[in-house]
């Protein structure tokens, strides 16, 4: 019996022992798993904390304005530039970013700025105007003349990560103590004492909320809120809360209070600007008040702190009443806790919200241009670098030219619709403006609403180009050794071309008239289709395709005969590249939007250098350019001659496609090139020719962007010879219709026209009659 009980006892003990063993094992596994889990959370939170700490979007700058004696500059334009740079007009400027305008003189103190090639210190100088030119610039302190001053460039936007976050990073020491104290008394009163979570806070918060009959305090600590901000999911499950709490404890274990608070100040979500999330107090200050954090007054600080609770519910722009009530509650707590005095509270309480009307800071106002910059940079940088390294991107955008283009686009498109009786919003447009010799893109508009960041027609609008293609046909024909000159008579009789097997093509002129024969230069100036098609067929469509590629078009182009009249498609930016080569007299310069990229500390990363290539000899290009000038003097673009100021010589080409679906004008002055497209997104006829739709907009832009007259001085190797239009032969006194045309030396016809005979008396008579006719 005793044996039995002993055995049973022993068995029970053994069972108990094994149970304990099991429990210990389980506990051990549990601890290991928990430790692993905590380790995992630790890894996540520290990676997030370190990674987010310095994640900065790339900042994109416009071209800086350079000021120098002799420069053409209207005083009003300089004011405009300074205002756009947020320089302040003050009676006597002494601190950076201030100026004062006097009569014909302006004193400016520039902001220091780190450029690619040089660090520009702040400069205090006096600039004197002589009419609309800069007469001289002198240093304010020393009185020495300055030959060149470069202003800081305007920030035109940023490149943000996919979830479109933007921020203006602030350092702990730059943040006003008032903000920090207010934030702590409202959101986490024991921040400086707790270890990441604060059980007392929950109780206190509940009491405070009941007392104020509003939610004036939350239960989570700032550390917990920071963790929550890092992992932006909105589910409020218990396990998530637990994770948050563990991560908060870990953060506090790794980092000190200052570091955590600094991250919080830069991380907290404070508003929404359409697609852009506003994170951090630094950006919020600009977003709501258009000034930096350190310039905020108590009522403004209170509003920002108030927004932490619910940026969209208390959105001061949409729900002003709610925001005001909440702000005043915050002010009350601030006074109660001694952050501000009662008198300060009363003063702040009396103030309105004070938010600026529009929300414009950092986000681009020039979406079409930024789109191009982003595409260019994506070729060379990973998305993550663009959106987190705080790169400084220097671009070619000229804000003034851009604004002119935008204003003219809005004005002309609406006017065209009214004049043509088109339904509102029928027309769309795209404009691109560049410099000529160095191919810098000054302005881009991608649609009728320049602020709308949608379909970018300047880059993606592939449209038939119509007659814009013709200069390529004529350039091919005028190469040395082809036998064609500007005087060559081209056949203008009905023709039938086999465009593709079993597909006949019968080109017609715009007016339906066949003129028998026309001089080559007239065929281009008047944009006659039949002689152009005949010319193209004679020299070979494949040769024209080769010319187009040399002109800078990379797209695959099929050598169909209909190409000769522009049945192929191009985008406005491709057209701009094609015409740039003409404008630069045969020297192709790839169009550029980005000049250089720099790290935030000023280290250069990459420069996008100017490159040129001589794609064509100067002589044939000169011949085509003189015809493109004829287009605007007395060809299809003649309307420009009364739109543009006298003396502004330009060269260009109209383009119209079948059934008036697309209206184009492409052309240039000496220093400016512009391409304008007007049409309809559904490719429906809009009833506009190149001359009636795109041309007036082109002209209105060109006369407002400091265009200088195109220099038609012929290159060496060009001679001018009088030609009888009727015969295409050398004209002389005696001929009624003589034009002087440029020829590549040695290619002008040697034979005299029949009208220019040698009889001296008869020609003298005719000469006198001719002169009478001219001067009558």
């Amino acid at each position: 019996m005793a044996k039995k009980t002993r055995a049973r006892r022993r068995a029970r003990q053994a069972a108990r022992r094994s149970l304990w063993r099991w429990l210990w094992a389980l506990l051990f596994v549990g601890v290991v798993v928990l430790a692993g889990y905590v380790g995992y959370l630790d890894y996540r939170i520290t990676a997030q904390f370190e990674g987010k700490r310095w994640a900065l979007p790339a900042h994109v700058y416009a071209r800086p304005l350079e000021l120098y004696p002799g420069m053409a500059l209207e005083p009003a334009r300089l004011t405009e530039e300074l205002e756009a740079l947020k320089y302040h007009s003050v009676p006597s400027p002494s601190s950076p970013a201030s100026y004062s305008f006097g009569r014909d003189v302006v004193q400016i103190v520039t902001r220091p700025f780190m450029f690619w090639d040089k660090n520009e210190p702040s400069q205090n100088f006096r600039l004197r105007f002589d009419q609309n030119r800069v007469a001289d610039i002198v240093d304010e302190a020393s009185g020495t003349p300055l030959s060149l001053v470069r202003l800081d460039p305007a920030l035109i936007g940023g490149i943000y990560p996919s979830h479109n976050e933007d921020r203006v990073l602030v350092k702990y020491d730059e943040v006003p103590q008032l903000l920090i104290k207010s934030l702590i008394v409202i959101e986490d009163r024991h921040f400086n004492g707790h270890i990441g979570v604060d059980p007392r806070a929950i109780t206190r918060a509940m009491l405070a909320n009941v007392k104020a009959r509003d939610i004036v305090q939350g239960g989570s600590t700032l550390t917990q809120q920071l963790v929550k901000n890092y992992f932006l999911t909105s589910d409020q499950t218990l396990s998530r809360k637990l994770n948050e709490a563990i991560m908060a404890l870990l953060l506090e274990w790794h980092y000190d209070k200052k570091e955590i608070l600094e991250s919080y100040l830069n991380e907290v979500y404070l508003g929404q600007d359409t697609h852009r999330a506003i994170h951090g107090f630094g950006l919020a200050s600009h977003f709501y008040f258009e000034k930096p954090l350190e310039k905020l007054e108590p009522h403004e600080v209170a509003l920002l702190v108030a927004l932490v609770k619910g940026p969209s519910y208390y959105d001061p722009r949409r729900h002003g009443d709610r925001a005001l009530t909440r702000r005043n509650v915050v002010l009350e707590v601030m006074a109660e806790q001694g952050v501000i005095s009662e008198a300060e509270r009363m003063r702040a309480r009396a103030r309105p919200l004070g938010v600026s009307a529009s929300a414009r800071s950092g986000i681009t106002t020039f979406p079409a241009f930024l789109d191009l910059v982003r595409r260019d940079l994506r070729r060379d940088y990973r998305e993550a670098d663009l959106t987190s390294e705080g790169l400084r991107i220097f671009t070619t955008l000229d804000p003034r030219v851009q604004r002119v283009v935008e204003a003219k686009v809005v004005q002309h498109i609406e006017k065209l619709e009214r004049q043509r009786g088109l339904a509102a919003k029928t027309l769309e447009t795209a404009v691109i403006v560049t410099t000529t010799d160095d191919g810098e893109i000054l302005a881009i508009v991608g649609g009728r609403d320049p602020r709308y960041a949608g379909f970018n027609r300047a880059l993606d609008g592939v449209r038939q180009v119509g007659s814009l293609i013709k200069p390529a046909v004529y350039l091919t024909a005028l190469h040395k050794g082809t036998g064609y000159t500007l005087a060559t008579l081209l056949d203008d009789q009905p023709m039938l071309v086999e465009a593709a097997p079993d597909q006949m093509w019968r080109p017609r002129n715009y007016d339906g008239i066949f003129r028998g024969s026309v001089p080559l230069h007239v065929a281009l100036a008047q944009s006659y289709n039949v002689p152009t098609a005949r010319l193209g067929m004679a020299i070979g469509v494949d040769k024209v395709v080769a010319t187009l590629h040399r002109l800078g078009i990379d797209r695959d182009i099929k050598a169909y005969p209909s190409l000769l009249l522009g049945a192929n498609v191009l985008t406005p930016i491709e057209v701009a590249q094609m015409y740039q080569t003409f404008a630069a007299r045969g020297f192709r310069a790839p169009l550029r939007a980005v000049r250089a990229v720099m790290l935030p500390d000023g280290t250069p990363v990459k420069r996008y250098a100017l490159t040129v290539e001589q794609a064509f000899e100067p002589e044939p290009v000169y011949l085509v350019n003189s015809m493109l000038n004829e287009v605007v003097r007395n060809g299809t673009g003649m309307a420009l001659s009364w739109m543009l100021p006298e003396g502004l010589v330009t060269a260009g080409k109209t383009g119209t496609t079948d059934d008036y679906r697309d209206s184009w004008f492409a052309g240039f002055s000496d220093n400016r090139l512009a391409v304008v497209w007007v049409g309809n997104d559904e490719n429906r006829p809009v009833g506009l020719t190149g001359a009636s739709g795109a041309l007036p907009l082109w002209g209105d832009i060109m006369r407002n962007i400091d265009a200088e007259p195109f220099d038609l001085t012929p290159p060496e190797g060009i001679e001018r010879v009088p030609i009888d239009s009727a015969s295409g032969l050398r004209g002389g006194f005696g001929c009624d219709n003589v034009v002087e045309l440029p020829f590549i030396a040695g290619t002008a016809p040697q034979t005299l026209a029949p009208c220019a005979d040698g009889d001296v008396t008869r020609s003298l008579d005719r000469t006198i009659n001719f002169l009478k006719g001219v001067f009558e």
Partner: protein
Amino acid sequence: MDSYKRFSRRLIVGQISVLISGCAAIPLSQSPSVPERFPPVEERSRADVPVEDRGSAIAPAPEVTALQRPGPAVVALLDDAAARERQGDYDTSIAVLERAVRIEPRNALVWHRLARVNLQHGDAAQAEAMAKKSTQFAGNDARLQAANWRLIASARRQRADLKGADAADGQAVILESPRR
């Protein structure tokens, strides 16, 4: 008809004015003097840098004639670019010269300098293209044109195009001959 008349009138008036101005023409190259602070790099005489011996050697830049004498802003930039060039910082030198191009895009001298720095930077193709571009704006300034051809010759030698280099040197010799 009207436009034809207008054109003829312009033509005749134009021809008359050409005649008049032809009589009164003043040679452009009489007035110029070289600014003193003009980049010392250019003061190297050709004897110091025998073009034939060194592929990367570059002919000295020509004197500045009235045609391409730059304004003070561009002069300042050319000075700055030359200083960078001396330090061997070709990239920045090019960046500075590009600023000069923006201010005076049709200044033959600026393009010549760009060509030179590009050549020193090892981009012979750009150097040749920019030298040609310079010549396009050089008007009848034979010295600058010759300097551009010398530069093109160096660029071609750098790319082992000896025949092309000789041809370019030939062009330079013609332009440098005193009878021109």
